[in-house]
């Protein structure tokens, strides 16, 4: 006679029908004799039948198909940048180049900053192009590689830095991965333009916007240092016209920054719609009930419920309208900056430009080192205090430790 452990060992073979007749006999003998094993056996057989007759819920069957389709739409705008980038970073020489580029950007950045703060007197405007990340033309932001000949000079690295490591490139990926045709998407874009003809451009911009059916939601005009004017606008553009409008803006001035995002609210929207439908049918039922209501108490109760449902209905409708407005009209944050016309008109010679640029870099490096030196000196007293505190604490701990021993 077999014991329970031996019986367990044979269970799977039994289920698969691969026991020898003798084993099968022993197996059944134990099964009939042992209550515990019998119970386990029944539970095991029940397990097999648990989901046999069950059906797939219709909601699941339809929703995963929908989701897969939506996912495909998103994938359809092929986006191979991430893959290329990984390969890119794997090559050692490119890594070195990236670091060099980052350093250049640092120096260039502090240089530009220094100039903007008016700390350095600029003799020529030659090194303006140095800040390549600043004056990138629109085509490059939009993804078509095409290098401005002015910038082709100084820095392949510079370009790489701006192109690969700048956060804007991420935004660009997002923008290009956005399905244009997908439903229930809220689009938001922000861009900064720099222009020499501020007034004409501002007026032209508004005309174009109105022609496309958009409107200005908010505008904020201000004058900055050196009499530069600035217009911060929040525009609402019909979503179908957004791309056309952006296209038109291209010709207007130099694009300083651009960012676009798309938020998929299909699920929230569908959810709201379902809730709305539920509330509507509830309302209908309540109204039918209201007609039948016998006592005053019933009447009051139902009316109370009607009021609640109405409130719910209103808030749901409101939320849906809010979404509709956001979906149908993309929000565009536009900053229009007036550009000061540089005094030097003609392009100086290459040698002069290089010299000027080198001078700038030298000045920036010097300024950087000086700043670092200042920082060290400024921090010295604090370091001294800190050292003193640490010293006292250590003495305290030592004494304390000795006492404890």
């Amino acid at each position, binding site marked *: 006679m077999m014991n329970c452990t031996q019986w*367990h060992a044979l269970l*799977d073979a*039994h*289920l*698969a*029908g691969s026991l020898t007749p003798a084993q099968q006999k022993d197996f059944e003998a134990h*099964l009939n004799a042992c*209550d*515990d094993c*019998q*119970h*386990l*056996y*029944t*539970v*095991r*057989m*029940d*397990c*097999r039948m*648990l*989901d046999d007759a*069950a*059906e*797939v*819920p219709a*909601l*699941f*069957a339809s*929703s*995963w*198909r929908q*989701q*897969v*389709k939506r*996912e*495909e739409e998103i*994938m*359809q705008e*092929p986006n191979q940048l991430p893959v290329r980038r990984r390969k890119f970073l794997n090559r050692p020489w490119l890594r070195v180049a990236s670091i060099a580029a980052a350093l250049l950007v640092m120096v260039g950045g502090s240089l530009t900053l220094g100039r903007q703060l008016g700390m350095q007197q600029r003799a020529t405007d030659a090194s303006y192009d140095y800040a390549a990340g600043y004056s990138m033309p629109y085509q490059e932001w939009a993804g078509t590689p095409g290098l401005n000949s002015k910038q082709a000079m100084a820095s392949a690295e510079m370009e790489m830095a701006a192109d690969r490591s700048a956060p804007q490139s991420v935004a660009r990926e997002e923008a290009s991965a956005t399905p244009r045709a997908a439903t229930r998407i809220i689009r938001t874009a922000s861009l900064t333009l720099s222009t020499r003809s501020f007034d004409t451009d501002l007026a032209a911009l508004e005309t174009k916007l109105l022609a496309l059916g958009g409107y200005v939601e908010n505008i904020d005009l201000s004058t900055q240092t050196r009499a530069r004017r600035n217009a911060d606008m929040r525009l609402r553009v019909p979503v179908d016209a957004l791309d056309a409008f952006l296209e038109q803006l291209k010709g207007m001035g130099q694009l300083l920054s651009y960012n676009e995002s798309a938020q998929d609210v299909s699920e929230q929207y569908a959810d709201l719609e379902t809730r709305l439908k539920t509330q509507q049918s509830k309302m209908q039922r309540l109204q039918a009930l209201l007609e039948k209501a016998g006592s005053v108490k019933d009447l009051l109760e139902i009316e109370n419920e009607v009021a609640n449902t109405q409130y719910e209905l209103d808030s749901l409708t409101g939320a849906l309208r809010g979404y509709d407005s956001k979906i149908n009209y993309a929000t565009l944050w536009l900053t229009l900056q007036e550009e000061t016309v540089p005094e030097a008109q003609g392009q100086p010679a290459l040698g002069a430009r290089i010299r000027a640029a080198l001078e700038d870099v030298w000045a920036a490096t010097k300024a950087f080192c000086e700043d670092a030196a200042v920082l060290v000196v400024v921090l010295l007293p604090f370091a001294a205090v800190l050292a003193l505190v640490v010293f006292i604490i250590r003495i305290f701990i030592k004494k304390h430790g000795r006492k404890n021993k």
Partner: protein
Amino acid sequence: MGELRSSAAAFEQLVAPYEKQVYYLCLRMMGNAHDAQDCAQDAMLRAFRAFHSFRGEAKVSTWLYTIAHRACVDALRARKPQVSLNTLQEQGWDAEDTAPTPYAQLEQQERKRLLEQALTQLNEEQRAAIVLVDLQGLLYDEAAQVLDIPVGTLKSRIARGRQALAQLLKNYRELFAPSSRPNIEREGK
């Protein structure tokens, strides 16, 4: 990219026969319909994202099970602290259904309910093993592949899981007694 264009259709065709299994794996792992639906949907989406790298070295079912199981484990890990209200409701906390039911049907339903409930009491690892092998009828090596564990480990999980299930249902032994059931028939596998 033409291939990509039709990939949702291709994916659907490939996967549709297994949607039931995916759903029920999630249902048994998560213990309630709402979470199961979310999880199964997540699994399908994950599968679709990985579809381009599916070369057919594994069976479609095994591949899908693996993804679905991972989705379940992730979801369980995420919800760990709280018990879903749905779970409570589906475990019998909601109002009793008082509609008259023929006794046999009632008994069958009750047994099903108890078994479902007992399954949710098992630990994650044993539950996954039991669901794959005893409920869905996977072979040992397939299930081991899905769970990414050696067959030996799987076997011991199943043995322990079965005993735990029997233990959990000990108090309802009469309900599960063979006399109340059709003849013990052998199962072709």
